[in-house]
């Protein structure tokens, strides 16, 4: 899909954008199966969750920043949103690094994967990248954070839960501006919808090729159960706040097996 001569890598037969720069202390891996991911909330698991999230925020920063570089003709107001997103993701990375260190962790303690960057940067147009990074990955993060805040609080760590709550609020704004801009750009030029559809189709194909299957295990022996490979419970209220229509939320719910974090008024 990419029209540029950007460097690429091949993972299990799938061509992806080469990883962004990481310090030598990091072990960069390419699939979920190579990640050290433990179930539960042991001290080690907590640090790994923060470490993984920290690297994902860094990747989100890198994607937003690279969009500013790759698409200089973008309307200024949208460039402002991408610049703001860059700063937000940088702040999130910093917050999570600090919390990781407070819990006794360190940079490079666990493997990292830059899947979002490697997939999104294969798309050669901004609406397609917004569809993947903001409307898919970040919207997925909204769902994950909706559950994770509760998980951390239940595990007795209100500090991390509060940090994730703050990050969630920012992520909602990133998804919202992408939803608004894709709608606006599509109204101006309906052919853009085709680019968005192509990007989503590409992601689906990559996920099918590289995603773990139920029964697979990762490098620390954790089994990918049916539940672990399933989409997270949908945070309906936050998705609506982020500008998804009710029909779109229903579609996401259907894909997630109708598992949801319901709005207060529906509980």
């Amino acid at each position, binding site marked *: 899909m990419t029209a540029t001569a950007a460097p690429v890598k091949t993972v299990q037969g799938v061509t992806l954008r080469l990883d962004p720069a990481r310090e030598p202390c990091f072990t960069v891996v390419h699939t979920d199966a190579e990640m050290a991911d433990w179930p539960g909330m042991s001290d080690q698991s907590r640090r790994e969750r923060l470490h993984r999230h920290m690297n994902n925020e860094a990747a989100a920063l890198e994607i937003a920043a690279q969009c500013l570089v790759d698409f200089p003709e973008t309307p200024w107001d949208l460039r*402002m949103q991408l*610049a703001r997103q860059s700063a937000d993701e940088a702040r999130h990375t910093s917050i999570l690094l600090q919390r990781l260190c407070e819990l006794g962790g360190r940079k490079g303690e666990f493997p990292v994967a830059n899947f979002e960057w490697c997939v999104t940067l294969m798309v050669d147009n901004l609406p397609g990248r917004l569809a993947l990074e903001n409307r898919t990955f970040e919207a997925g993060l909204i769902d994950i954070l909706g559950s994770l805040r509760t998980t951390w609080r239940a595990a007795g760590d209100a500090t991390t839960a509060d940090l994730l709550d703050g990050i969630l609020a920012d992520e909602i704004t990133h998804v919202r501006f992408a939803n608004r801009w894709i709608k606006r750009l599509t109204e101006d030029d309906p052919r853009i919808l085709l680019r968005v559809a192509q990007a989503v189709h590409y992601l689906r194909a990559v996920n099918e090729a590289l995603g773990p299957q139920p029964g697979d295990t990762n490098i620390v022996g954790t089994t990918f159960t049916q539940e672990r490979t399933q989409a997270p419970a949908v945070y309906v209220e936050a998705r609506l706040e982020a500008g998804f229509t009710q029909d779109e939320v229903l579609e996401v719910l259907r894909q997630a097996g109708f598992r949801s974090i319901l709005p207060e008024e529906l509980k």
Partner: protein
Amino acid sequence: MTQSIRDRADTIATFRWVSVHLMETLARWVPSTPELEVKILFGRHIWEFAQHADALGRRTAELRAPLHFTLAPVNAYAAVLEELATVKGTAERLHGLYQAIIPDLEARYHRYLGETNRLLDEPSVRIIDRILADLARLQADAAETAGVRPDLRLADPKWPERLRTRALEVASFVASRSGSLAEVV
């Protein structure tokens, strides 16, 4: 002598070009800078330069130029910024931007404040006052980051000073509208 509206619009538009250029430079550096603390610093400051460009671009419309009117600087100054933009080393990026280019930019903003009629041009003055406060904070942020990464050393310790001298040698960075790539971004 009071600057003409056109002179002021052109200078503000040039500051805008530089702000957009620095925003893009930082954006280009983010994925290719390995050190996490520096990556974070650059990422946070992308938004700062974007806000400067936005405020300056709104001001150009009040000075009888188009909204977000943007004027490329004279070639010599653009070349200095391009040299910075293309450096690969993290220490060079850090010191080149925060110890050479930003101090030069501060000097140019101060010069503008010294030359404009502060009452007649008060909206520009307010914008620049805020930008100057931001630039001081950006340099403090960079110093803090350099403090936590003492391992980042310049290959040529005198390079930032040479870069700053080259910038200083460009007395006026404002190009004439006809001889420059004026644009509205």
